[in-house]
């Protein structure tokens, strides 16, 4: 079968199981776009290439399948950069395909030429510049294999325009030959035996679950582990959804804005079983005082994560699911009554400080998040932006659902929520997809509202509008004497804006209107945007100040205590 490069790309995508591509056409991908309609590939036209990368990312996080985006050379390619970096920091498997100027123009500063393989070198798992059509089939095969195997990550393929037009007798390779890339799947049996022994001997065991559990689809194995030895489970931000939040053993998120009782548990545990997480600074706080009493077992697919940030007593390198299966088969059942009682005492103390248990009529995001949870029966795919709205969502929407939270953790990319939700909804059309976002973040990729309408995606977009870039404002309040430099922000009339795009818009200013509006939003078939005008100076608690120990949290002041 003789095909040109553009058709080879599409044919390869179909063979890799791709069904949808998020993209934006341009001069050097005209051939690719010309081939696209010949295949069963849905194209979602975004309004800015950054949206395409985030949508591909949202798609993969919701479905577990590789997300794909297209962009043209030069500005099209550079607009993908933030999205690719977001995927890289969170180990999201996406394949980004960019056009490049024709081979004979490369290096001549041609129109819309940019060295995108050079630019994305440190933010891709691997990347390719294809200047010969004969390399193209193998590059496509390798790109998908590399993106989804081992520790997943983004791969970029930059294809010169003439390569897209050049013809080749097409044969899709069945295997790859990558002598330098052999990800470990099975963990070392001796290490796993030793881990089982350490866990069995523990008095205060604690499981610490991260994104790796989701990436490896190991949620059942994780549950089995925790239940077998009655070990409480804390998660990272991206570990949310890997263990049901309403499970009695679940302590929720730990770290900078984690639950106080989750952080206390880390500081008192004697064995910490870290599963598919990487001890980010947002989780450890001051490393020297992190988990001081614990022997740390670190299970991860990436050997370079072992010992990178914290000392590890027992590493197990391998695919989480494989390792947990093997580990679980060696565990002795155990109960840790005293330990669980202690943890629950901390939990009760936290509940006393919870803002939802205070007398107030203020319209505050924690209340809204909890009501969204009630109204959606905890079964929505929630896509959040970054900042206060993200932390409140993580704290107050009780995620039992696997892959139920999509959020930018590592890079912390504002503007992520709306385009990522587009990807999630395209990937999971039968599920409810809700967006929670601040009035800052929504304005970073607001152009994608047009994509929502064109693609008829019934997203429910909830704006927590406090008139500030809230997280930075909170830091300014706490550590910079309330000098709100650069953080007050205005926006358009979001309801009118929604109307202009053809989206139903509502504004809520009172508590009593929250639930009826959420119910209404849910009943309306199409997309809905709600502008919640919330209290301006509300803070996220608890908070571990940057570089502080996670034992020393700033707690929400009790009613009779002075505020900052």
């Amino acid at each position: 079968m003789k095909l040109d490069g553009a058709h080879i790309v599409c044919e390869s995508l179909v063979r890799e199981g791709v069904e949808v591509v998020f993209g934006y056409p341009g001069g050097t991908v005209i051939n690719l776009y010309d081939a696209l309609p010949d295949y069963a590939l849905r194209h979602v036209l975004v309004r800015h290439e950054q949206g395409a990368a985030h949508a591909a990312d949202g798609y993969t996080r919701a479905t577990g399948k590789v997300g794909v985006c297209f962009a043209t050379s030069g500005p099209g390619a550079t607009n993908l950069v933030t999205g690719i970096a977001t995927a890289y920091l969170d180990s999201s498997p996406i394949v980004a395909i960019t056009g490049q100027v024709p081979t004979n123009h490369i290096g001549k500063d041609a129109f819309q030429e940019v060295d995108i393989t050079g630019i994305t070198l440190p933010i891709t798992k691997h990347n390719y510049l294809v200047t010969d059509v004969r390399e193209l089939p193998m590059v496509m095969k390798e790109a998908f294999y590399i993106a989804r195997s081992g520790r997943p990550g983004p791969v970029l393929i930059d294809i010169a325009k003439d390569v897209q037009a050049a013809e080749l007798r097409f044969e899709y390779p069945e295997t790859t030959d990558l002598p330098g890339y052999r990800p470990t799947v099975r963990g070392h049996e001796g290490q796993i035996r030793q881990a089982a022994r350490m866990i069995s001997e523990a008095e205060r065991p604690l499981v610490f679950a991260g994104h790796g559990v989701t990436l490896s689809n190991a949620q059942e194995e994780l549950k089995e582990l925790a239940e077998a030895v009655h070990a409480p489970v804390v998660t990272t931000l991206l570990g949310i959804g890997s263990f049901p939040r309403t499970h009695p053993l679940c302590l929720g998120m730990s770290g900078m804005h984690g639950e106080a009782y989750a952080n206390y548990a880390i500081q008192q545990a004697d064995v910490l079983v870290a599963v598919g997480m990487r001890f980010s600074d947002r989780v450890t706080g001051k490393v020297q005082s992190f988990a001081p009493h614990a022997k740390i077992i670190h299970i991860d697919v990436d050997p370079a994560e072992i010992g990178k940030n914290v000392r590890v007593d027992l590493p197990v390198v391998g695919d989480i699911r494989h390792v947990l299966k093997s580990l679980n088969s060696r565990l002795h059942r155990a109960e840790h009554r005293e330990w669980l009682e202690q943890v629950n005492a901390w939990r009760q103390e936290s509940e006393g400080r919870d803002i939802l248990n205070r007398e107030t009529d203020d319209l505050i995001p924690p209340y809204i998040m909890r009501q969204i949870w009630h109204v959606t029966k905890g079964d929505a795919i929630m896509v959040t932006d970054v900042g206060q709205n993200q932390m409140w969502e993580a704290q107050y929407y009780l995620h039992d659902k696997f892959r139920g939270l999509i959020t930018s953790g590592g890079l912390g990319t504002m503007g992520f929520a709306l385009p990522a939700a587009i990807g999630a909804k395209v990937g999971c059309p039968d599920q409810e997809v809700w967006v929670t976002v601040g009035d800052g973040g929504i304005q970073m990729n607001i152009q994608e509202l047009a994509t929502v309408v064109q693609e008829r995606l019934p997203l429910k977009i909830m704006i927590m509008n406090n008139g500030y870039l809230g997280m930075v404002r909170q830091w300014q309040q706490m550590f910079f004497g309330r000098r709100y430099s650069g953080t007050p922000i205005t926006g358009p009339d979001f309801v009118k804006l929604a109307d202009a795009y053809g989206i139903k818009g509502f504004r809520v200013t009172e508590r009593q209107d929250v639930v009826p509006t959420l119910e209404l939003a849910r009943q309306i078939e199409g997309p809905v945007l709600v502008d919640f005008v919330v209290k301006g100076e509300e803070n996220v608690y608890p908070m571990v100040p940057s570089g502080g120990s996670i034992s020393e949290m700033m707690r929400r002041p009790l009613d009779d205590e002075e505020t900052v």
Partner: protein
Amino acid sequence: MKQTLIALVQDKPGVLDRVASLFRRRNFNIESLSVGHSETSGISRMTLVVNCDTETQKEQVVKQFHKLIEVTKVIDDVTPDRAVYRELALIKVSANIETRSAIIQLVDVFRAQVIDVAPASMTIEITGTEDKLDSFVNLLRPFGIKEMARTGRVAMLRGTNGKQ
């Protein structure tokens, strides 16, 4: 603490860029880097000398290095007792009728080689360990070194009894 690493990498465009980018991004400090063909076609061999403060840091360097798809092998136990190190230098030194013979004497003592002679200078090639090169350079300095090119360290593990 200087660490010597040997890496075998697939000879593809951009591979050197990937290595350099990795070391810069991870804040690893490269003392020297030399690249050339290996015994296998399509595979290049790199010798790197890296400054590592701790054993943990060395481990990180090796592990991150391994993650590059085109790196097929990293040898990290390249210690002086297990390996031989060599470096080559080309040195252009000022030389006239009066100084020429003194320089040639030094060249003989160090088993270096004169590879070019001009009325006002000589170019010398020398191979050896860095220490040997350093002392040779120090002895030449009073004559006036006009130009110098050093390759950086290349290393190879010693053969062992019975097996390679």
